[in-house]
């Protein structure tokens, strides 16, 4: 496959889209830089697929602007709405959408045929694309003769063969088995890096988003909740929603007892903990402590920010053990080997890792 020569930036500005009174996108802005992979992450109904399809031209936004480099794809104020086929983008469908009546070769070649490429060139580029994706031997097969993983690769080859400036992928891994998905994830990331693609990937799986993307856009009800590198999104969530979406957490409902420069003391029945204050907290108001499972540690005695709990049960997960502890109404999970002493088990919740969010808005997802 030829490396795309002139890579251009994709810019989406203040995009709005509604079906009747159902507002799907409520002012989304984003950029995708050349050679970058951006993941659109969100629950179903968050608008992530609609955003992707709007870029492709398959959905009709009501307002906003979409451009790639100097080409305006959509601009409500200028009345521009380039038809799908004129946008020159690659799209990998969730269902792959291979044409069942065309062979693998013909599926991939179609985009080139439409662009009037001559036969020899088509032959060369399709073979190159297929061998790039490890499909060289399957060119003559029909889609229904391929495995799910092979179909997915054909769908990717089909979207890449005419060197679109941006490749769009709609849940590219969701149709694969759990086992296969992890392998495909690594393989897809490698492919994107090797071919220096600019890709916009829709997914509902945060692990997938973190593994594949340079940057993540988390969507919530048609708005961008937070965006950043996978590391930022995971370790420094600005909102409760982001914190819940990006990882598995323990929850500690309580009340704010003190607020001291960026720190808050959370108080519950029989316990008090210091944590990092997030959002608008008031002393005396309800708040929830949120901490990643893997940041909750088993300690060997009492101390600062430690809780004395009782072990309820343990679960063997293969690579590690997960334990469930209780403290009054609290249930806390954590990984590791339990050392029980006479006065119960101690868990340490480091103050830097315990985020304290106001309780009012709770649209937790996990």
């Amino acid at each position, binding site marked *: 496959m030829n490396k795309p020569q002139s890579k251009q930036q994709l810019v989406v500005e203040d995009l709005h889209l509604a079906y009747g009174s159902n507002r799907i996108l409520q002012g989304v802005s984003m950029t995708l830089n050349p050679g970058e992979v951006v993941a659109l992450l969100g629950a179903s109904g968050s608008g992530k697929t609609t955003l992707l399809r709007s870029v492709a031209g398959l959905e009709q936004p009501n307002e906003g602007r979409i451009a790639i480099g100097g080409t305006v794809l959509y601009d409500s104020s200028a009345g521009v709405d380039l038809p799908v*086929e004129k946008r020159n983008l690659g*799209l990998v469908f969730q269902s792959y959408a291979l044409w*069942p009546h065309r062979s693998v070769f013909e599926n991939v070649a*179609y985009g080139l045929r439409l662009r009037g490429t001559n036969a020899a060139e088509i032959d060369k580029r399709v073979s190159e694309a297929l061998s790039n994706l490890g499909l060289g031997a399957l060119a003559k097969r029909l889609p229904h003769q391929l495995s799910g993983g092979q179909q997915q690769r054909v769908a990717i080859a089909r979207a890449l063969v005419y060197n679109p400036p941006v490749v769009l992928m709609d849940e590219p891994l969701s149709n694969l088995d759990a086992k296969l998905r992890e392998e495909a994830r690594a393989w897809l990331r490698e492919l994107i890096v090797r071919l220096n693609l600019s890709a916009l990937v829709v997914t509902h799986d945060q692990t997938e988003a973190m593994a594949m993307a340079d940057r993540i856009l988390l969507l919530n009800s048609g708005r961008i909740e937070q965006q950043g590198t996978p590391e930022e999104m995971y370790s420094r969530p600005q909102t409760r929603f982001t914190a819940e979406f990006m990882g598995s957490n323990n929850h500690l409902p309580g009340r704010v007892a003190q607020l001291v420069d960026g720190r808050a003391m959370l108080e519950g029945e029989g316990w008090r903990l210091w944590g990092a204050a997030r959002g608008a907290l008031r002393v005396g108001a309800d708040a929830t402590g949120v901490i990643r499972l893997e940041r909750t540690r088993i300690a060997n005695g009492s101390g600062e920010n430690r809780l004395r709990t009782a072990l309820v049960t343990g679960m063997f997960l293969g690579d590690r053990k997960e334990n469930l502890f209780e403290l009054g109404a609290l249930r806390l999970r954590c990984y590791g080997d339990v050392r029980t002493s006479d006065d119960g088990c101690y868990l340490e919740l480091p103050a830097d890792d315990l985020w304290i969010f106001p309780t009012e808005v709770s649209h937790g997802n996990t």
Partner: protein
Amino acid sequence: MIARSFSIPRTMVVAITVLVIFMPIGLIFWQSLLNAPFFNPAHRYGLDSYAFIFEDGDFWSAFGNSVVIAAGMVLIALPLGAALAFLLTRTDLPAQRWVEVLVLIPVFVSPMVLAFGYVVAMGPVGFYSLWAKSLFGDVPWNIYSLASIAVIAGLTHVPHVYLYSSAALKSLGSDVEEAARVAGANPLQVAWNVSLPMTMPALFYAAVLVFFLGFELFGLPLVLGDPEGHLVLSTYLFKLTNKLGTPSYHLMAAVAVCIVAVTFPLVLLQRWLLRTAGKYVSVKGKATRQKLLPLGGWRWVALAIVALWLVFTIVVPISGIALRAFVEQWGEGVKLSEVLTLDNFREVFDQADQVRAIINTLLIGVVGGALAVACYTAIGLAGHRQRGGVAKILDYIVLIPRAIPGLLAGLAFLWIFLFVPGLKELRNSIFSIWLAYTVVWLAYGMRLISSALLQIGPELEESARTAGASSRRVLTDVTVPLIRFGLLASWLLVFMIFEREYSTGVYLLGQGTEVIGSMLVSLWGGGAIDQVAALSLINIALVAVGLAAALRFGVRLHE
């Protein structure tokens, strides 16, 4: 579910089904191998009857005409039906909802009625012909030519093609079309490169179906082919009845076998095509809202063409009948305002046999339809979730009646009622008509029932079994209640089909077995145009009631 080896009700159902299917067809085959009617003691085995018809020039010209008409129908109906399906499923054609309903009307109006409608509307002295004559000085068409019959038959069979191709287009995942758009294809290229090839199996199926229906055509060629003497196989068979002065059953049976020899392979081909048509559907993706192709200014052109077709296939014949039913006579120089009358209807209601025909037609639709659906359900349940040989056999034998044109089936049942001891008493009751109708439409009814049964997930029945229900309890407590709505819908559809049926009753027509359909054939033969018009209009009204009910309750009008 493990099939138990034996169950009395199921065995009974299967046995009766086999009997009512193989008795008539067996009788036809046996009769075709005799040199005289089977009740004639002097009959001998031999191929004399085949020899006779193969030497008859009329047989070969009828055979040729059948092929020409059937092929012509395919050539006309296929492109128009496919185009109509594309317009209605993929574009922003105006008035879609209306067109979708109107398109189906020709399927449910009796071809006999339609044919008669064309005669009174566009025949040499039809309403529209005289109107055209006053405009152009001459009638610019002749509906009695072979080509006209093919054109009319083709145009009235557009809905069959439309139904199958629109179903295929609707089940086609929009993602494969979007993928082509993204790859750079414009809407026309998408239609040509993706949608059309992917609906090809359905189109091919529809083509075979239309050819098959063309081969079975009876009402249209009977009415329109008569003036110029164009015979097709079914009308040739019909004319044979009296050709030799005595009942020439052996000759008719030989022709019947010839017809079945063509239609049965076509039925098997259709079944095979239907199976392979599923090949593409399995790859379909997520159904997202389909963006309709904007036609721009062309939408009005497209609508005008569709409207023109609707006018020709529905408005012209039906308005012709409606007008003719309310005039005492019609011809050149007759003024419409001077001949308006209700006498035609009075005449119909004065004749005991015609009143009986109306009552019988209603009974056979309402009561007979319900009983037929009950029978179809029993057969469907007998094969339901059975993996054994019985289910497979049932699957195939219910197809056999599909290959036998109604005219032949009616004839075979006449013989059965005449010559099987103990059945003679039933010959003059409406039961004989009901049995023939039920067997003739068996394949259609079974498709309705099995599509209802297919809606039930096996786990619903399996959970009842697990909870401790016997397989019979599962049928009565789970399966039948779940297909209740499907059964009601089937009843409505079978009602319409039974109202519309005409050829099956032709040979069974007698005192007590009159139905409107066969009455029309007989009255038409006797030249009683006034009553044919009035009865036709009544028939249309009955079908319209069924159609209105079906639309009101949201019944899908095809399987």
